[in-house]
C-alpha cells in the first residue's frame, strides 16, 4: 500500500470510487439495496484501508484480523472495497450477480477472496465473530475480529445472545460496528423498533461503546485507532449513517432500499459521486 493511502483525502477518494463501482454493479444487474450499500461504504473503506490488519498478500495468515460482513444484502459495497484493496479482480466484480457469474448477491465464504464468512440471513454475524474472538483469545493470537451489522439486525434475538456472551467473556478483541442509519426495510426505526439509546444498551451489557459520525473519516479512523475502548470489554462503534449516503436524492429515502436507478438517475448519481472524488 502506498504511504498516503490511509489519509483522509485518500479515504474520501476511494469511497467515491467505491460508490461508483456499486452504482455500476447495481445498475448492470438491476439489483436492490443501493441505499444499504451507500450507508456503510465509508466504514468499509476505513476498515480496509488502515483500520484492520488485512492484506491480499496474507489471505490465510492466522494472525490476520477477521472481518464479518453480517449485512450481506449490501454485498456490492463489500465487493467494491475488496476490489479497490486488491482482494478481488475486475473480472470478479464484473461477474457480480449474473448467470454463471462470480459473486452472488449475498457474500459467499472464500478466504482466498478475503471473504471469511457467508452472510445473508441477518443476526448470524456477531455469534460467529464472538466464536472467532473467543478461539483467538484462547490461542493468545493478536488477531482481532470486526463485525459489521445493520441496525435492523439488532432486532434479532441471536444478536443479543452474542452481545451478552461477548461482554461476559470480556472479548476485547471483538469490535461490533453498527451501520446505524435508523431506516429499516419498511420504514424508520423510530416507528418500527426504536434502538435509542444504543450506546447505553451496550454499556449495560458490559461493552465499551461510542457513537460516531459514520461518514466522517476523521471520526471513524479515530474510533478504530482507539480500540478497544475499554480494556477487557468488547467495543461497539455505533456509526450514525444515512441510507443512500453520497447521492442527494437517495439519502434517507426508504425506496432506495429496493429501487435500482434508471438511466437518468444513474447519470445524476454518477455526476454527484464523481464530484465527490475531487472533494
Amino acid at each position, binding site marked *: 500500500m502506498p504511504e498516503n493511502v490511509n489519509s483522509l483525502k485518500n479515504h474520501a477518494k476511494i469511497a467515491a470510487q467505491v460508490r461508483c463501482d456499486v452504482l455500476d454493479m447495481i445498475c448492470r444487474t438491476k439489483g436492490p439495496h443501493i441505499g444499504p450499500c451507500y450507508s456503510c461504504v465509508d466504514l468499509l473503506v476505513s476498515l480496509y484501508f488502515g483500520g484492520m490488519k488485512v492484506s491480499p498478500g496474507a489471505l490465510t495468515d492466522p494472525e490476520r484480523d477477521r472481518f464479518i460482513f453480517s449485512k450481506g444484502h449490501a454485498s456490492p459495497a463489500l465487493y467494491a472495497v475488496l476490489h479497490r484493496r486488491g482482494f478481488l479482480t475486475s473480472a470478479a466484480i464484473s461477474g457480480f450477480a449474473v448467470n454463471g457469474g462470480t459473486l452472488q448477491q449475498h457474500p459467499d465464504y472464500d478466504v482466498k477472496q478475503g471473504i471469511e464468512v457467508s452472510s445473508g440471513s441477518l443476526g448470524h454475524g456477531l*455469534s460467529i465473530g*464472538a*466464536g472467532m474472538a473467543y478461539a483467538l483469545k*484462547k490461542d493468545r493470537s493478536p488477531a482481532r475480529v470486526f463485525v459489521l451489522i445493520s441496525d435492523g439486525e439488532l432486532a434479532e*434475538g441471536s444478536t443479543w445472545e452474542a452481545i*451478552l456472551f461477548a461482554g461476559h467473556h470480556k472479548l476485547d478483541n471483538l469490535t461490533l460496528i453498527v451501520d446505524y442509519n435508523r431506516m429499516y426495510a419498511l420504514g424508520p426505526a423510530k416507528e418500527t423498533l426504536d434502538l435509542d439509546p444504543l450506546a447505553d444498551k451496550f454499556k449495560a451489557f458490559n461493552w465499551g461503546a461510542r457513537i460516531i459520525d459514520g461518514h466522517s473519516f476523521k471520526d471513524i479512523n479515530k474510533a478504530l485507532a482507539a480500540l478497544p475502548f475499554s480494556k477487557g470489554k468488547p467495543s461497539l462503534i455505533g456509526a450514525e449513517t444515512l441510507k443512500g449516503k453520497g447521492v442527494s436524492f437517495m439519502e434517507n429515502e426508504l425506496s432506495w432500499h429496493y429501487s435500482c436507478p434508471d438511466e437518468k438517475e444513474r447519470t445524476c448519481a454518477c455526476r454527484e459521486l464523481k464530484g465527490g472524488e475531487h472533494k
Partner: protein
Amino acid sequence: MRKAFYERMAAIALANPDVNFLTGNLGYKFFDEIRAKCPAQFLDVGVAEQNMIGLAAGMALCGKSVYCYSIIPFLTLRACEQVRVDVCYHNLPVKLVGMGAGFTYGQEGFTHFGIEDLAVMRAMPGMTVVVPDTIENAVRVAELSVNHKGPLYIRLGRAGIHGAGNKSTLKAIGKAVLLRQGKDCALIAIGNMVAVAEQVAESLSVKGIKATVINMHTLKPLDEAAVRACAGKYQFIFSLEEHSVQGGLGSAVAEVLAESGFSGKFERIGIPEKLDRVIGDADYLWAHYGLSPAKVTTRLMKTIRGKCRADQI
C-alpha cells in the same frame, strides 16, 4: 449412554487440546470429568442455542473442533438456521450432540420430545447423522467423531433397555450392522428401536417367522447397499424408529426401496404426526403409540399373516 459418551470424550479432549465442548446450560454432572480434566475446553454459553451454534462455527473457522450439547429440539430446531448456514454451508467440524431421542423425556412432555430432528438434520447439506443404540456404541461414536470431517449430528437417548443392550457392534459410520439373519422379513432399525427389533425378531421366531435385524445406526449417509440387498431378499421390510414417520429412517428407506423397484410390502413403524395428549414415561408412551416390542410384534404379525393369507386366495 450420555454419561459413558462424555467419559470417553473427556479422555479424547485431554489428548486433543483443540477439542471444545459447548453446552446450552444443560447436562448437569455429565461434563464433570471434562471440566475437571480440561476446564479450558469447556464452555457453558447459557440458555442461548442460536448463539452456541454461531460461536461453534466461529471457533471452528479458527481451527477448533467443537461439540455442542443440548436437548434435541432446542439444539436442532431452535438453532436450525444457524446449523444450516453457519455450520453446514461452511462445512465445519462442528458436532451436535442431542439428548432425548423420541420420548426419552417422557413426562416432561411435547416441548422436550425429539421427534422431528432426524428429518430436519437429514435435510441439512453435508450433515452426517448417527444414532447409537447401546452404551458401547455411543462410546464408539465418541471415538469416531473426533476425526470426522464436517458437520455431525449425534442423537442420544435411552440405551441398554429391555435387556437387549450392552453390545459393541458399530464399526464405522455409514456401514449398517447385521445383527440377526432371517429369511422371511427384514427389520431395519435405528437407535433405541434396535433393541426393540431384536426382541420382536425373537417373538416372531416363536411363531415361525424368521426375521433379519439390521442396525441402521447411520441415517445419513444411508447404507443404501444394505437396503437394496434387503429389497432383493425379503417380501416384507419394516423400518423402526423412535421418531415421526415423516422424514426419518422410514422415509430414507422408502426412497431407496422405491428407486430399487421393490415390489414387496414395506411399513414404517414410528411415531404418528399428531400426538394424543397422553402423559407418561417413555415405556408408557411407547406402548401407547405402538412402539413397544409387544405392539410392534402384533402389528408385524398382522401384516405378514394378512398378506400371506391374501396371497393364498
